[in-house]
Structures are given as C-alpha cells and as structure tokens.
C-alpha cells in the first residue's frame, strides 16, 4: 500500500519524463504536449472547483488573456519570452482578483453564468480592440526557438507544460494540506458556517480564483509561444473551459490526480472520436453522450469510484449492546 501510493506517482512521473524519447514520432510528442497542457489546466481549474465547489466555465478567459498578454509583450515590447510569460501571467492574476471580487459574490448556478459571461466578454474585447490585438485577424506570435525544427519545438514545450503541470500539482497538494485548503473546503460545504468559524470566505474565494487563474494564464502563455497563432474566438471559447471541467470531474475533483487522469482519458478519447466518427457531426453526439453518462454514473469521478465507497452510517454494535444490557436485564 505504502509502496503503491508513493511508487506509482514516481513511476508515472518517470514515464512522463521519458515519454518524448519513447514516442515513435513527433506527432505523438505533439499530442502528448497538448494532453499535458490540458492536464495542467484542469489541475489548476480544480484549485477553484475542487476545493470551493465553484464551477467556472470561464477559465478559458484566463487562458486567452495569458496567451494574448504573452504574445503582445513579445511582439510589441520585444521582451524575452520568459519575461513576457511571467509578466502576462501576473497581470492576468491581478485581473482575476478584480473579476473575482465581483464574481464570487454569487453562489452556485449564478456563478456558472457569470463565468460564461466572462469568456464572452473577453472575446468581444479582444476581438473589438483591433488596433492592439489584431482583432479577428488574430495574432501571430514568433516562435521563441526559431532554430529548432517543429518536432524539437514540441519536445521543448512538452517539458515546459510538464513543469507547469508539476507546479500545479504541487500547489494543489500543498493547498490541500494547508489551513487555507481546509477553509476552502469548508466554503464548499457551507459558506456561512465557515464564516462564523472565522474563515474570511471572501478573501479565500478570491485568492483561490486568482491562484487558479495564474496557472491557466501560464498555460495560455506557453500555448501562445508554442502554437504561434491566436484567434479570439478560439482561445476565448467555452469549449476549452468545458474540457477543463469535464476532465476534472471525470477523474474526480476531490483528488490530486483526478484532473490529470481525466485529461489522460479525455484528450485521447476526443482524438479517437474525431478520427473514428469525424466525417459527420455525430462525434459531437458521442462526446455529449459520454458527458451525460459520466455525470449520471460517475459524479464523484473515476478515482472515487475505484478507491472508496462510502460505507454509510453504521451503528457501533458493541457500545449499544452494553447500553442495552443495563436495561433489559
């Protein structure tokens, strides 16, 4: 048991690091990098969703802003890509604090709507602000590694995304063990009660919102550098957010590795559906049906399914028997 719980993650990590060298061709490296990117994003989504239970369908806004921020800094100010990436992620985090203050005022379903609105709004802003962002023409970001050929670029970004994923996992793990995390979980269960026990719920929620935005923004920035073309209607898309949510839920929002596992399943499965059914729109239906089935039959996620079933309340027999003896005798 001990070995399984320690050893498995190490083994997986080793495999992940070796993956680009084991992959028979660069396309699989590319697909791997994309999967890791989604894993990193859904893990960071889970910093908000898993702890506080606030379902955001708006995280692609941070993805897009991170991407555009990085791209614009590189193009307009010519700063080195690392600086651009970090500065843009920081700015997005600040922005997320502002948005968070307004957004976390509503709970449950309304929050979902607000987050959807956030994506639509950012899409409109970026699309409308043609002079800065290039509008609907999109933004072409120069590659940070012009000397590498395409396959090598995929390798580099595979490791960059892997590092980001590691960072996100570490953060989640750390938060889950901290008092901050305990407070966030309490918020998920009962906000007013948490408040009365001294949890500053407002600050916590905004902090979780911003933290989770930070990693998504970093992923967006890396994406911009890797991919090279940005188009507002695609980076600010509810579909990207939905993927984060789907992956997290499928794996299990209450587990460190839930979103990662979800990503490892969803990304290849999506690929499979497209290739197998791609000639008609029926693959959308297939995805939709899978989503429905997950929600209906695995609402707690795969990991919860595999590891533990809630035993339900049980009455401690001995203690009650003792109690009864005094009466019946």
């Amino acid at each position, binding site marked *: 048991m001990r070995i399984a719980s320690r050893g498995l993650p190490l083994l997986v990590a080793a495999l992940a690091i070796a993956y680009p060298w084991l992959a028979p061709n660069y396309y699989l490296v590319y697909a791997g990098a994309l999967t890791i990117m989604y894993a990193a994003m859904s893990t960071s989504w889970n910093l908000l*969703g898993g702890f506080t*239970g606030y*379902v955001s*369908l708006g995280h692609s806004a941070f993805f897009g802003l991170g991407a555009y921020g990085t791209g614009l800094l590189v193009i307009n100010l010519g700063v080195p890509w690392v600086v651009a990436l970090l500065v843009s992620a920081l700015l997005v985090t600040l922005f997320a604090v502002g948005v968070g203050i*307004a*957004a976390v*005022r*509503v709970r*449950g*379903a*309304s929050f*979902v*709507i*607000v987050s*959807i*609105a*956030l*994506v*639509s*709004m950012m899409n*409109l*802003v970026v*699309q*409308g602000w043609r002079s800065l962002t290039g509008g609907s023409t999109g933004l072409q970001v120069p590659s940070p590694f012009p000397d590498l050929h395409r396959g090598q670029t995929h390798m580099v970004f595979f490791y960059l995304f892997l590092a980001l994923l590691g960072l996100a996992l570490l953060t989640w793990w750390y938060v889950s063990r901290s008092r901050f995390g305990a407070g966030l979980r309490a918020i998920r269960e009962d906000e*007013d009660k948490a408040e*009365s026990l001294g949890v500053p719920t407002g600050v916590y929620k905004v902090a979780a919102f911003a933290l989770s935005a930070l990693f998504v923004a970093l992923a967006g920035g890396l994406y911009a550098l890797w991919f090279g073309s940005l188009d507002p209607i695609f980076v600010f898309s*509810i579909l990207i957010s*939905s993927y984060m*949510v*789907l992956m997290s*839920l499928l794996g299990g929002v209450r587990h460190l590795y839930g979103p990662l596992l979800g990503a490892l399943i969803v990304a290849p499965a999506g690929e499979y559906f497209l290739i197998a059914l791609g000639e*008609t*729109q*029926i*693959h*959308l*239906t*297939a*995805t*939709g*049906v*899978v*989503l*429905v089935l*997950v*929600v*209906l039959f695995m*609402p707690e996620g795969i990991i919860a399914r595999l590891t533990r079933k809630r035993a339900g309340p049980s009455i401690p027999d001995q203690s009650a028997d003792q109690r009864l003896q005094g009466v019946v005798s």
Partner: protein
Amino acid sequence: MSLLLQGLALGVLTGGLYALLASGLSLYFGVMRVVMVAHPAFLFLAAYLTYTVHTALGVDPFLALPITVPLFFVLGVAVQRLLVARLAPENLAMMSVLLTFGIALTIEGLLGTFYTGSYKSVSMEYATKSLTIGDVHLPYDKIIAFGVAGLTLAVLFAVLVKSRFGQALRATIQHREAARLVGIQTERVAGYGFGVGLATAAVGGTVLALITPFFPASHWVWIGKLMAIIVVGGLGSVVGAALAAILLGVVEGLVLVTVDATWATMMFYVFLFLTLLARPQGFFGGRLAHRF
C-alpha cells in the same frame, strides 16, 4: 433623434423576443435550480422541426406549434425523469451544467447529422414587412414575436404562480419529502415542470425560425445572452426576467445605433457585472437570503 426613437422601438420589440427565449430558463433555473445550458440548443431543435413541418406541408410556421409544443413537453418530461432526476441534490448546480452541456452537444450533433451543417430558414412574406408610425418602422416579425412573448409569459406566470400545478411544483423543489406528504406526486410534477420549460422552447424556436436563419451550431451565441438576462432579472422571477430582457433589448438597440455592435453585445455582460456589484440577487426578484 428619429434614429434614437427607431433604436428604442426596435429594442423594446427585440427585448420581447429575448424575454420569450429566456422564459423557460427562468423556470428551470429559478424554480427548479437546474442550470440549463441546453435551452438554446432546444430552441434550435424546435426551429428545425418547425422548418421541417413548414417545408413538408407548406404551412405557416405557427401551425407547427400544435406538433412541437406537445412534443417538447413530452421531451421535457423525459429529460427530467430520465436524466435530471438522477442528479444528487447536493451538487445539482455543478452537475446540471455538465449534464445539459452534454445534452446540447448531443442535439447539435444530431441536427448536424440529420439536417447537415447548412443553413436553413423559414421565410414568410409578412416577416419582412413593417408597420410605419411616423418615422419609426416596426417590423411585423418582431411585433409577432413580442405578442407571442407576452402571451407565453402570461401563461407561464399563470401556471407557475397561480395554478395548483405551479404551487405543487415549487413545493416539490423546496422540500420534496414534505411535498410528498401533502399529497403531491413529486416525480410527476417535477417532470411536468421541465416539460413546461421545454414547451416554451418550442414556441421560442418557432419565432426564432421566422426571424433568423440557423444551423446546428447557432445555439452557442445565445447561451451567454440569455443567461445574462436571467441573472439581471433575478433568479426565479418570471416577471423580472421579462423586464430585464426588455431593458437589455433597449440598451442593446440604443447602443447599437449610437455606438457600435461590439459594444451593444457587450452591454449584456456589463449589466451582468453591474448587477452583481449592486444587487447580487438580481434587480427584480431573487431567491431568499439564507436564514442563520
């Protein structure tokens, strides 16, 4: 000046359309606590059915209503009983988003498969005429939409607030066990509630078909707009949603004629955030605050 007047008139009429399209949402969302992302997808499903009836029989699209409305009612009952009812109540909000998102994708895929990706439209002679009062033109299609919206909302209001069924529905959602104990058949009632919501989608879809061409992916643009209306109006308030719809319709129309289309679309979200900052429970209605 006359341009402003024209913008205002168009805004009011368009607001009516929005109110119609959003009315079902305020039912699921406010009364049944289900975040129904698939509502616009159902609207377009209805539009496609209307199109089929219209082209097959050559009749006025409104004559499709006797077919689509009962059909959607039954569909709604089925969706509720087979899918939504299985969600655990403690995370209904989260799970219903995903569930209905999945439903929306399913519908889009099916529409694409059966009707192909190409645009369909229903055009009637009367839909492009307009009534002219002074300098202001009032398009008939929008007037019809406005009228249908008024009618639908009135019916919905009567059903939800005044009728026995409406009371039973609200009781069911608020405390299921207690509702069963006063003699309400809760499963049936919840199913019917959803059915009524989808029935409004059938009406909305018909009107939409008359006004705009559509293709399977058309529903995406509507999700954000309609949801914004519901939040600004205050969850659960049919009247609030209607007023918010008209308000936003007018703002959109006026901003469009004075500034530009991007800003006009943005207004929905700007108002949404303003609402949150000023009155998170919405302007016209809203759920009870918690008792401690």
